C-alpha cells in the first residue's frame, strides 16, 4: 500500500489468534448454532400430523364425565394466554388484535405473556426461517401442557410467497403440531379472532374420557 499507514480498526494484538480477536470469540458459537440449524433441517423433513380430535364412539359416549370436562375446558378456553412472540409483519395484526378496537381481552387473553412458562398459546405470526426455527421450537418445548399453536398467515402455514426459498421453513407444521391455521397475507385481526374462536371451540371438545388436553 502507498500513502500513510492505516490502523487496523480492530487492533489485533501481537501473538493473538491469527483469525483475529473477534472471530476467535464468535466463530465457534456460530459453528455450534449452524450445527443445530442443520440438524433441525435434516431431521424435520415431514410435517407433524395436525392434532385432530377424534369423535368418540357410542360406548365411550355412554360414560359421562361431562361436568368435570365442562368446567376444565371452560376454564382453559376462557384464559388462553398467548405467548408474546412475533416473527414478521403478521405480528402487527396480532398486536392490533390485542388493542382496544378488536380487544382480545374479551376472551380473557389480554395478557400476552413474556415467558413461555406462563403461556398456553403460541401464535406463529409471520415468516419462519430455518435459523429462527431452533429458538421457536425451544419456546414451544418450554411451554407447559396443554398448549396450542396457531399458524398465522400463509408464510407460517406453507412458506407462502417464500415457498421454495433457501432459508424459509415450508410450513411451521414441520417444526411443531399446529391446531388452527389462519390464512391471509397478513390476516386481518378479524380473521385471527375467528381462528382463536375456532381454537376455543376445539378446546371445548377435549374430554378426560377420550382425548384429554395435552395429549399429542
Amino acid at each position: 500500500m502507498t500513502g500513510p499507514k492505516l490502523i487496523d480498526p480492530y487492533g489485533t494484538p501481537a501473538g493473538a489468534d491469527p483469525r483475529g480477536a473477534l472471530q476467535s470469540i464468535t466463530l465457534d458459537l456460530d459453528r455450534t448454532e449452524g450445527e443445530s440449524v442443520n440438524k433441525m433441517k435434516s431431521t424435520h423433513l415431514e410435517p407433524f400430523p395436525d392434532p385432530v380430535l377424534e369423535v368418540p364412539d357410542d360406548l365411550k359416549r355412554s360414560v359421562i364425565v361431562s361436568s368435570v370436562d365442562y368446567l376444565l375446558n371452560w376454564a382453559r378456553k376462557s384464559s388462553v394466554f398467548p405467548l408474546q412472540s412475533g416473527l414478521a409483519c403478521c405480528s402487527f395484526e396480532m398486536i392490533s388484535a390485542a388493542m382496544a378496537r378488536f380487544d382480545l381481552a374479551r376472551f380473557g387473553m389480554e395478557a400476552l405473556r413474556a415467558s413461555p412458562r406462563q403461556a398456553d398459546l403460541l401464535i406463529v405470526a409471520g415468516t419462519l426461517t430455518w435459523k429462527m426455527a431452533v429458538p421457536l421450537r425451544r419456546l414451544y418445548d418450554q411451554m407447559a401442557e396443554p398448549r396450542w399453536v396457531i399458524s398465522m398467515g400463509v408464510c407460517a402455514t406453507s412458506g407462502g410467497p417464500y415457498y421454495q426459498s433457501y432459508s424459509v421453513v415450508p410450513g411451521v407444521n414441520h417444526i411443531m403440531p399446529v391446531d388452527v391455521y389462519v390464512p391471509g397475507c397478513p390476516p386481518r385481526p378479524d380473521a385471527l379472532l375467528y381462528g382463536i374462536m375456532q381454537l376455543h371451540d376445539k378446546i371445548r371438545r377435549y374430554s378426560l374420557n377420550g382425548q384429554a388436553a395435552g395429549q399429542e
Partner: protein
Amino acid sequence: MTTVWSGDALAEAIEAFAPGSVESSAGSDVWLKPESISTVCEGLKIRSEFKFDLLSSLTAVDYIDHFEVVYHLTSLPMNASAVLKSRVGHGRTEASIASVVPIWRGADYQEREVWDLMGIRFDGHPNHKRIMLWEGYPGHPLRKDYVTYDQSIASTAPGGADSLEGAE
C-alpha cells in the same frame, strides 16, 4: 447538489496517483483491476482532491462468466459521489478481492453479506464468516447457478421441474 464523478474523469484522476490500476471506464463507472483495489481506495479516501470518507454501499453482481464487486463512495467534505467496480472470478473460479475494512470500517458487514450470499472472498477481512445464513449452510444462494433445496427435489422427482417447464 452532490457532484457525481464521471467515469472518465475519475479514471484519469486515479491513473495520476496509481498508474496502471484502471481497467476501463464508461458513464459514471470505473472498472479497477482487482489487485489494485486497496491502493486506489486508500488514495481515494486520503488524498485531498477526493476525500471519499464514506462507503455508502458495497455489493456484488453475478454476470455468469464473472462476478462484479461494486463500491459506491461518497465524499462528505467535497459533496461528491463515485462508483467503482471490479471484475473478479472469471470463469466462475474462486473469486476473491482485497478487503476494504481497514479503509472504511463500514465495509465489515457488507463484505460479510457479499461472502454469505454471493461467495466472493475478501482477503484480509478481520472477521470473515457468514452474516445471515448459518454456519454449515451449503453454497451461496444468490449465485445464478444455485439450486435451492426444494428445487433440487423437484428436478429429481419423476415428472418434476422438467415436466413443469414443458407444460408452460
